[in-house]
């Protein structure tokens, strides 16, 4: 695909940076040999040299970063194209089927249900993108209210059960002491929903998800979402909260997503003065996502 080209250009710019620094050093050494007697000039030259090297290093770092960002952006566009077009294609296919073929009532009802599922999926993707825009660019004001965290978790679990047709008992809620947070209901709901959605999506066919709420200390309350899914390599635990980032490999193609969900979770946590992180013993050993929010006084 395009990736080898990108790797080449990253390597090229790093080589260019190193090359330029070597040329500067060579020129400087020559200059020192010629002017070693004039002290002030030497000092100024050294200063200039440091500035030049810093400039080249900065330039290289920014270039490499920009190339990486472009790469993630392309992957995001591909994923979003897929996530937007697939449900539309499905809805359209079923509508055309309903329009052109004589169907039994049961079939008709089944097709309506499929189309509703697809429109939910489409809406989910659109909301995710719009939310990222709101959180990322505008940093708009929070609509703060007192929220019962337990209630939010129950609503989100109910939503996930319906959306993924999860069997009874596959998503469990272990209620803790009642706790309220001062937050934006819409955003907190989105964050908790994203964590539960991820846990279900990545579990595959054998969904076994536990959600817990607990009071951490006098200041914070937490939501922990635990799954028995594929787990996360240690090196990826921080990366996965970055915008557009998806762990490379087979799993990212099996489980469809835009790479925005956890970015939203982390942004919501930050906006509320809390934090979010992931824990995992490694691949194959499940994972736990924690969202910590300040308790409402």
């Amino acid at each position, binding site marked *: 695909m395009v990736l080898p080209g990108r790797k080449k250009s990253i390597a090229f710019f790093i080589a260019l940076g190193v090359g330029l620094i070597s040329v500067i050093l060579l020129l400087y050494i020559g200059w020192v040999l010629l002017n070693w007697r004039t002290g002030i000039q030497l000092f100024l030259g050294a200063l200039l040299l440091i500035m030049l090297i810093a400039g080249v290093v900065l330039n290289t770092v920014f270039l490499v970063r920009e190339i990486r960002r472009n790469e993630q952006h392309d992957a995001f566009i*591909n994923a979003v*194209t*897929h996530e937007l*077009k*697939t*449900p*539309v*294609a*499905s809805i*359209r*296919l*079923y509508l*055309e*089927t309903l329009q*052109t*073929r004589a169907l039994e009532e049961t079939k008709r009802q089944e097709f309506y249900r*499929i189309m509703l*599922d*697809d429109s939910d999926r489409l809406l989910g993707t659109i909301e995710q993108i719009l939310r990222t825009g709101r959180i990322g660019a505008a940093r708009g004001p929070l609509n703060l209210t007192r929220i019962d965290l337990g209630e939010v978790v129950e609503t989100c679990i109910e939503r996930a059960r319906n959306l993924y047709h999860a069997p009874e008992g596959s998503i469990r809620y272990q209620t803790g002491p009642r706790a309220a947070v001062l937050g934006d209901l819409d955003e907190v709901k989105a964050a908790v929903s994203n964590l539960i959605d991820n846990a279900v999506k990545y579990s595959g066919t054998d969904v076994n998800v536990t959600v817990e709420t607990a009071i951490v200390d006098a200041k914070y309350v937490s939501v922990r979402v635990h799954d028995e899914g594929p787990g996360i390599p240690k090196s990826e635990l921080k990366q996965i909260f970055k915008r557009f980032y998806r762990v490379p490999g*087979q799993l990212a*193609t*099996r489980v469809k997503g835009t790479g925005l969900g956890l970015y939203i979770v982390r942004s919501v946590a930050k906006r509320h003065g809390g934090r979010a992180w992931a824990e995992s013993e490694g691949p194959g050993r499940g994972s736990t996502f924690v969202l910590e929010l300040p308790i409402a006084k």
Partner: protein
Amino acid sequence: MSSILIVEDEQHLAEGLRFNLEAEGYQVHVVDTGEAALELLPPGQNRFDVVVLDVMLPGKDGFTVISELRQAGQFVPTLMLTARGHPDDVLKGFAAGADDYLTKPFELGILIARIRGLLRRSEWLRAATAQPEAKDSFRFNGKTVNFDRLELRVRDQVFPLTLMEANVLRFLIQHEGKPVSRKLMLEEVWSLREDTDTRAIDNFIVRLRRYIEDDPTHPRHLLTVRGVGYRFVAAPAEAG
């Protein structure tokens, strides 16, 4: 009854396609990975008449699947059905060996018409193979195109041709000596509408030249007609 293999991991789409194609009277088999499709399509066996192949599959993607099939000598007519509609993706699909390409969302009627088109072409080819071999092969300048076996013999070398390569070559041979426009080829060989990108054809010509020209950079049989398309010349005049 013709049988169709659908390779699609989106369950809703796959089931919708299965329902409609079965309603059209086809036998339909659905798999959700490229690996499963490769297992069902061993070279030399024709269990399916047409394959509908998605690109974004878990594991091996559609481009890899189609090129592995072609390399292994499995030339089942294949339509790629994918959300990726960028011209580069379409060209990549054709270059990998797809016979047709349709982007999602698609119109059901068009999808069915294209599948019928692919089936019709294989039937024509099959009907042609039932006739004496002389009618179904073409000799020129020491080279023999065998349309029924989908192969091209140049001296003692044999190049396998895909169904679409054979169709393109047949079309050009039928119009021997006359310029044929890219548009006409798209319409007649692929049954595509005129707004389709015509560069896809150039890929086929590049590949055909590699087979039939002694020096593909200086073609003598498959000539480019500037601003129009291509012209096939069976017996080129000797240079000088």
